[in-house]
């Protein structure tokens, strides 16, 4: 059975999680899969940790340290979430 989630559903979830931490409203309003959390949304690494912890709770997955390093863009984050969901 395919346990992965629709891309747009994940993006909506990510936007809700990231919203309190973003420092660039325009980049957030124009968010795409290419959006980078640090470079575009100007989120600091401390708040990136809060986002990852919220992602774990929302999608009921556990992210490893190495994986977090790859979760810099919306696209790579969707890929990791779906990989985790698929392996559950």
């Amino acid at each position, binding site marked *: 059975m395919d346990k992965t989630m629709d891309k747009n559903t994940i993006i909506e979830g990510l936007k809700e999680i990231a919203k309190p931490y973003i420092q660039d409203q325009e980049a957030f309003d124009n968010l795409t899969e290419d959006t980078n959390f640090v470079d575009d949304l100007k989120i*600091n*690494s*401390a708040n*990136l*940790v809060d986002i*990852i*912890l919220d992602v774990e709770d929302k999608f009921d997955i556990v992210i490893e*340290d190495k994986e*977090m390093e790859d979760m810099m863009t919306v696209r790579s984050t969707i890929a990791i979430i779906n990989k985790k969901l698929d392996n559950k």
Partner: protein
Amino acid sequence: MTHEKIISLLPYSEPFLFVDHLEHIDENGAIGTYTYPESSFFYKGHFIDNPVTPGVILTETMAQIGLVCLGIHLMANRIEEQAKLPEMVMVSNEINFFLPVFPGEEVKVISSKEYFRFGKLKCEVELRNADDALVCKGKIAGMVISNSSL
């Protein structure tokens, strides 16, 4: 790692070291004390003719005992392997203040770990005076950084 060893590794010195003793430390939190000497530099200007310990100094004391000492304990193996202390910075704090602390008072800091993940340590921290009354309380987070950019 012994309490004395942890204190000796702290990256601070007079006039910005705010840890005298550690009473207890384990993976879930730290308890330690500090007495503010009457000669501390900040009493000269905070306030004029009315010395009171500044809130930022109380916050720093909470961070040094509650987070940095705890962080060293949690990373003891890594620190001993690398023979080097990782760079740690405060990344957020939200503190409420209830009582003043005057020159010469001893305070006790009690921290309780919320999480230590992806290099970020977040704790609930309390600071109490010699009568065990609550002086200030809140959440502080610190982070281990690999370069100077946050």
